[in-house]
């Protein structure tokens, strides 16, 4: 996949993630999710486990948007 294709996909996935956050939060609160084609492809309680699951599925995790679904009322200050 070219950089342009990856960027275009990531733009769509990021937008979908932000717009769908309330519904995603209800289902996947506290979990790591892998997003592909504006859908949750896989989820797990830890980053490492998520990577293992994706590998077993034969998915190229490089091309996926990986996000943790933090609760709406949780704020992290860096």
């Amino acid at each position, binding site marked *: 996949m070219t*950089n*342009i294709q*990856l*960027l*275009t*996909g*990531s*733009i769509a*996935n*990021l937008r979908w993630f*932000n717009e769908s956050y309330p519904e995603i939060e209800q289902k996947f609160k*506290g979990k*790591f999710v892998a997003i592909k084609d504006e859908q949750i492809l896989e989820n797990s309680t*830890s*980053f490492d486990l998520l*990577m293992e699951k994706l590998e077993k599925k034969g998915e190229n*995790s*490089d*091309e*996926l*948007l*990986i*996000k*943790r679904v*933090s609760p*709406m009322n949780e*704020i*992290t*200050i*860096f």
Partner: protein
Amino acid sequence: MKIPLISRKGKLEIGNGLLIVGKRNTIVADFILDTGSPETIIPYEQAVRLQVDFKNLTKNEGMTRLIGGKFYSYNYSKIKFVFAQDNKEQHKEEFTKEFPVTILKPTSKKNKDKVESMDIPIIIGLDFLLEKNYTLYCDINKKETYLEKKI
């Protein structure tokens, strides 16, 4: 050249996605802009995705503390960030030996579990804005936030 940012949950995130081109692969990622961070930081999880070989990296002296976690830090220069501009065209920024990115690795398994739950993003720090000559425009009320670079 403008790179749009969005404000979400009190953080400034890139609006149009981001790629990181590493030595071995290219990964999709996202980042926050943190003007309180002196350095541009790649967290351990993303470094693993980039297949960074820690054995060949020299650990910096001392430790870094971030949101309660302790980290070893490494300088890394074999990557490029690829941004989407407001016109959807891509723009690359390269990290060099003179201007490396900082990779943070938790000092222990206990620390790793602790900081993983906090989901540390890729952090674009002040050094990036200074070194790469970006200007940050930020009017949260008008929802006008972007990075601009004169080319």
